[in-house]
């Protein structure tokens, strides 16, 4: 999890497979946050968790709390996400390995609980991505592996 308003900073969530990069931006104070969600739900994990930043249900509220304490205002926030690709798994036709999809659903649920709407998302498919947020311009961009970087 990274939060910054420092000019010149581009927050990045590189190498997203089934993981999700969630970017949140307050355009008025030019404060950006980026979290790399690995798994949907910390409640399913059997041991004491020292890294709340890995899970949708713990990482997102924590980042929001921090951003708000730094002056961000919820109603101004722009939220975008990318990642959540699916493991190609036609063989079994099962969703057990669809961590990407479960992550996507979990991130959306946590955001709606927080009263936030996702402005844009690029999720699913079976390719890796890199997701970035430029804290000066507020520009979000996604690069699918093997393709050009595009604005999101």
């Amino acid at each position, binding site marked *: 999890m990274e939060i910054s308003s420092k000019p010149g900073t581009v927050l990045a969530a590189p190498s997203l*497979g089934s*993981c999700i990069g969630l970017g949140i931006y307050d355009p008025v104070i030019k404060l950006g946050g980026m979290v790399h969600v*690995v*798994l949907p739900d910390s409640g399913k994990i059997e041991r004491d968790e020292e890294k709340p930043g890995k899970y949708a249900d713990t990482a997102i509220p924590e980042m929001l709390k921090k951003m708000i304490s730094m002056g961000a205002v919820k109603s101004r926030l722009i939220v975008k996400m990318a990642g959540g*690709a699916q493991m190609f*798994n*036609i063989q079994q036709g*099962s969703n057990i*390995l669809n961590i990407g999809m479960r992550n996507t659903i979990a991130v959306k649920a946590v955001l709606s609980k927080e009263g936030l709407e996702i402005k844009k998302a690029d999720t699913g498919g079976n390719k890796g991505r890199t997701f970035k947020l430029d804290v000066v311009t507020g520009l979000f961009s996604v690069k699918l*592996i093997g393709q050009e970087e595009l604005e999101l």
Partner: protein
Amino acid sequence: MVLDVDELINKVDVLPHNFHIAVKAAKLLDDFNVDINELSQTIGSDQALVTQLLKLCNSAEYGFSKKISSVNDAITRLGFKTLKSLVFAIVSKGSLNKKLEGYDLDKGELWRNSLTCAVYSKYLAEITKYKDPELAFTAGLLRDIGKLIVHQYVKSKYKKILKVVESEKISFYEAESQVLGYNHSQIGAKIALKWNFPKVLVETIEFHHNPEIAEGKCEDIKLASIVHVADSMSMMLGAGLGNDGMMYSMNIKILENLGLDATSSGIENLISNMVDLDSQIDSLMSNIG
């Protein structure tokens, strides 16, 4: 331009120089009556390898309070199995730390992905009580060497392969076979054979995407299964992912055969633990120069 497999393998370079040493050291180490002097001479014949080895075994990862200062010292303190896997890791960098255009892997990405698969394989070996976690590390590290050759052919046929993946709902390596007439695991096994790798490595390289068909063709199916799961996980978690990305299938049955919890929460716990191994991977990246 489809080459036949033998033609392709003929074009593969002779063994990169220091792999000779790793293979020779591995053979010596597999021998119960290994002659320590011969072993230390073999490793010691490559000064760069010695420097690397000492740097790596003195890194925080191995936690020796007293500095390891010679090859002999490393042999006695690390133990044969660890020593073998470190030697393979060091010599592999020259081959694996390459840009592979066909898979859209920048320099360093295949290397990171391979180290990730190695660390995950070792971890899986430990939790499934496999007899030799260090061997799992090496097998995981080298499982994709076939990509070093196949990538140039994948490059020219990438669109076609992708089309076959999508239209026939098969995995990327199956589509490689269909379009090219071979896939990176077959080619990898042939290279490993040509380079005189231990048989167990040749076989796990060959079956790392489909251990379910390895029965009778692979002596150590458990190892092939471990590498299969580690491979899928390293792809899923995105470390050094190429344009073949996650177009591989992981077989749930293989997880079950390994005695792992294959429910969705079981898999999430496994992923959570694996992600925590990142610092180990970073440390290997920075300590193998």
